[in-house]
């Protein structure tokens, strides 16, 4: 009964989103206030029914209703409750339901926090989001309903969730990522609404900025979590694989990064309007493209679970309608008038545009690398695959250039800046970063290393220029505390995010250069040494978990005779899926991780193959990612968004 209720709620949600897609937009076109007023209640109704549908699926999982196919395929009665619930998004159908649910959540949020928005704008934004929701809920209902039953005969127990997914990572990573993906639909809807209304003033940039920043922050946090999850769960210490699905999340993030900067310029200076609109459309289009790539099975990937050409075709039609439609609208209605304010060749506007271009070039590079096998195949020229060497070869130089120009644009002024002024601003940071970059590999490593030099120099450069810019704010301030509270949260957010970039760059540089690993056959009592640490294997014993049995090794780690930690890596055997999993044991630290994984048992004397990793600065990758995400969130706390919006009502 409950699953049917869920399906029925989904059908009602489709009805509401369809009305939301039609009535308010038509009202806005004909200036019919009554029709426009329908936008808000419709957004609420759509959210309510998706919520009901989502709860129904959760109920089916929590109560082990294995007559529901999706539950039977992704859960098991032995599964701990938190994994039963997160198994909702452990497969294709449920993740799409989560997608649609989050979309309705964003739609609701726009309808709630939009008091300053003119009615026609709000009606258009919600209407555009209604169109997207209509597409996705139809997709769910027609090709991927999670509520289908196995009747009359259904399995006594479920097939269990993929053991790789039975982890805290599954609980948080997909919702975060989807919050980001889907969040870009708000920026997209604002851009389309602006194009439809023809009012492309700075106001729409101001309205969409906080939404875009939050979506960007969620996406960044989601990617960071995914990388962290892969690192500890896959059991071999990798943190980024250039897998098509990872790329699918990285592309909208890169374009989203360009978008939040371009929006800032459009709001502050009234320039780059067409470019900003295009980025808003691209960011969301890439999110949709990501969904297509993951769900259609056109590319092979470690992430691809259920793939099906029929679904792919449906998403492709959705893509054509939304992206094709919005780009057509863009082509006809984007402003081609010259911007009202001008700027010189050397100005903050220009430098931000250059940064934007770097980010977009990077996104295109990733897109090409991801789609190239498909393009070649479609052209009938054979099958090829593109590996990490391609991405690394292009990523490192482009990101280094980006970091360089990041530092310069912070120091540049709007409109026009002088070379002499820039030199004065940047001389000290340049010297500091070069010196640190040259010295670091000698102190930390055992000699000069170009990659380390490059990575450390550009990271120090970003930090030093950010610090200098921050310090200069106080040049004319009477009191430091007064000035500190005078700076806006969005300014602190920007600083934090920029430092985050540097922190990530340091992490990538050091972990990819100075990592050490050993694979050893270790019998109880054997010791090995790695990066000054001694590891002593004490033996392995059997342990039992909720739905698995495991061999658990005990390894004592000492540093110069002093005990550091005892680690317990496991080799798990999941009984239902009959699959083996390596559960790494990690001693995490700010400057290094010790990472132990069990291989295979070797011989009768209790010996095991043990893999020992020493990973310097690996935490910095995720720390930097979190800094960026927090920075994005901070910007929303600007008072001006609230103040301006009430001001707007006053003179509207």
């Amino acid at each position, binding site marked *: 009964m409950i699953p049917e209720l869920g399906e029925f709620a989904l059908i009602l949600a489709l009805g509401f989103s369809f009305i939301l897609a039609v009535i308010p937009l038509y009202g806005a076109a004909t200036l019919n206030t009554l029709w426009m007023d329908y936008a808000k209640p419709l957004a609420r109704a759509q959210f309510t029914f998706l919520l009901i549908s989502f709860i129904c699926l959760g109920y089916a999982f929590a109560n082990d209703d294995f007559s529901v196919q999706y539950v039977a395929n992704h859960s098991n009665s032995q599964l701990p409750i938190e994994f039963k619930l997160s198994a909702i998004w452990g497969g294709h159908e449920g993740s799409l339901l989560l997608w649609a649910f989050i979309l309705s959540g964003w739609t609701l949020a726009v309808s709630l926090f939009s008091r300053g928005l003119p009615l026609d704008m709000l009606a258009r934004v919600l209407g555009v989001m209604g169109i997207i929701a209509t597409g996705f809920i139809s997709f769910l209902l027609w090709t991927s309903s999670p509520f289908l039953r196995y009747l009359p005969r259904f399995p006594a127990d479920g097939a269990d969730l993929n053991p790789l997914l039975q982890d805290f990572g599954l609980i948080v990573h997909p919702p975060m990522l989807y919050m980001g993906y889907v969040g870009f639909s708000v920026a997209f809807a604002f851009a389309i609404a602006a194009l439809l209304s023809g009012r492309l003033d700075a106001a729409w940039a101001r309205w969409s900025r906080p939404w875009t920043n939050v979506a960007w922050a969620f996406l960044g946090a989601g990617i960071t979590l995914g990388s962290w999850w892969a690192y500890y769960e*896959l059991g*071999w210490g990798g943190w980024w*694989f250039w*897998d098509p699905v990872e790329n699918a999340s990285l592309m909208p993030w890169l374009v989203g990064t360009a978008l939040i900067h371009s929006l800032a310029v459009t709001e502050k200076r009234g320039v780059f309007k*067409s470019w900003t609109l*295009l980025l808003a*459309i*691209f960011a969301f*289009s890439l999110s949709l493209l990501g969904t*297509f790539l993951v769900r*259609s*099975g*056109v*590319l*092979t*990937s*470690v992430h691809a679970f259920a793939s099906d*050409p029929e679904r*792919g*075709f449906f998403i*492709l039609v959705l*893509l*054509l309608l939304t*992206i*094709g439609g919005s*780009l*057509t609208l*863009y*082509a*006809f209605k*984007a402003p*081609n008038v010259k911007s009202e304010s001008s700027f010189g060749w050397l100005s903050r506007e220009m430098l931000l545009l250059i940064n934007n271009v770097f980010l977009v070039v990077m996104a295109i590079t990733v897109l090409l690398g991801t*789609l190239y*096998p*498909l*393009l070649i*195949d*479609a052209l009938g020229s*054979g*099958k*090829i*695959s593109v*590996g*990490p060497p391609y991405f690394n070869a292009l990523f490192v130089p482009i990101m280094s250039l980006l970091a360089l120009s990041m530092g310069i644009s912070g120091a540049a002024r709007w409109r026009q800046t002088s070379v002499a002024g820039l030199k004065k601003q940047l001389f000290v940071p340049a010297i500091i970063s070069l010196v640190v970059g040259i010295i670091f590999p000698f102190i930390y490593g055992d000699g000069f290393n170009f990659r380390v030099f490059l990575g450390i120099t550009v990271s120090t450069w970003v930090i030093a220029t950010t610090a200098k810019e921050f310090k200069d704010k106080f040049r004319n301030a009477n009191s430091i505390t007064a000035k500190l509270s005078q700076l806006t949260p969005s300014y602190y957010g920007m600083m934090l995010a920029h430092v985050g970039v540097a922190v990530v760059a340091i992490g990538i540089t050091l972990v990819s250069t100075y990592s050490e690993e050993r*694979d050893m*056959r270790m019998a109880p009592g054997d010791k090995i040494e790695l990066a000054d640490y001694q590891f002593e294997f004490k033996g392995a014993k059997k342990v039992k978990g909720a739905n698995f049995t495991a061999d658990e090794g005990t390894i004592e780690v000492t540093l110069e005779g002093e005990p550091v930690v005892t680690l317990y890596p496991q080799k798990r055997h999941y009984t239902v899926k009959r*699959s*083996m999993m390596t559960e790494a044991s990690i001693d995490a630290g700010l400057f290094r991780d010790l990472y132990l994984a069990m*291989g*295979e048992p070797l011989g009768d004397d209790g010996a095991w*193959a043990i*893999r020992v990793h020493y990973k310097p600065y690996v935490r910095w990758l995720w720390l930097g990612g979190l800094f960026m995400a927090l920075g994005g969130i901070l910007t929303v706390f600007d008072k001006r968004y609230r103040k301006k919006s009430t001001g707007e009502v006053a003179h509207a």
Partner: protein
Amino acid sequence: MPRLLLFIPLALFISLSFFLWKGLSIDPRELPSALIDKPFPEFQVAALLQSERILSKADFIGKPVLVNVWATWCPSCRQEHEQLLRIAQDNKINIIGLNYKDERAAATNWLQQLGNPYAFNIYDEAGMLGLDLGVYGAPETYLLDAQGVVRHRHVGVVTAQTWVELQDMIQKLGVNQ
């Protein structure tokens, strides 16, 4: 800016969707192999674990075998490894590894750590044998009959389901001969 320029993104998108549409009609896992029902290419390549041993086609003629193309840089290969170990345990057919464009040390480590399902491994460092065979990426698995003729090609991860299908084919090979 001339209006026409604003149509560029649309034009690019439309051409991209054409490729996506074409992509849908191609199943990346089911590749027609130019070598189906043709003999496995001749080769003389060193073994992975014993670098002094030179392998050739003669090493696997006489019984049907699976040739599994793998590499340590390939995440999906790690995913299918458990299944390969299980197939090896079933003892119905020998699996021959074709270690493709890889490093010897990394590949040796891999086998030590994850277990070795292979009867032996061909160390195709430059990917030349892979090229002759028409490999487009790892993992790929070929079913060869007792005469060394390629009978089936599977692209992507070998799952329990794939193994069921392969067993059917192996059985048929046995009946025909």
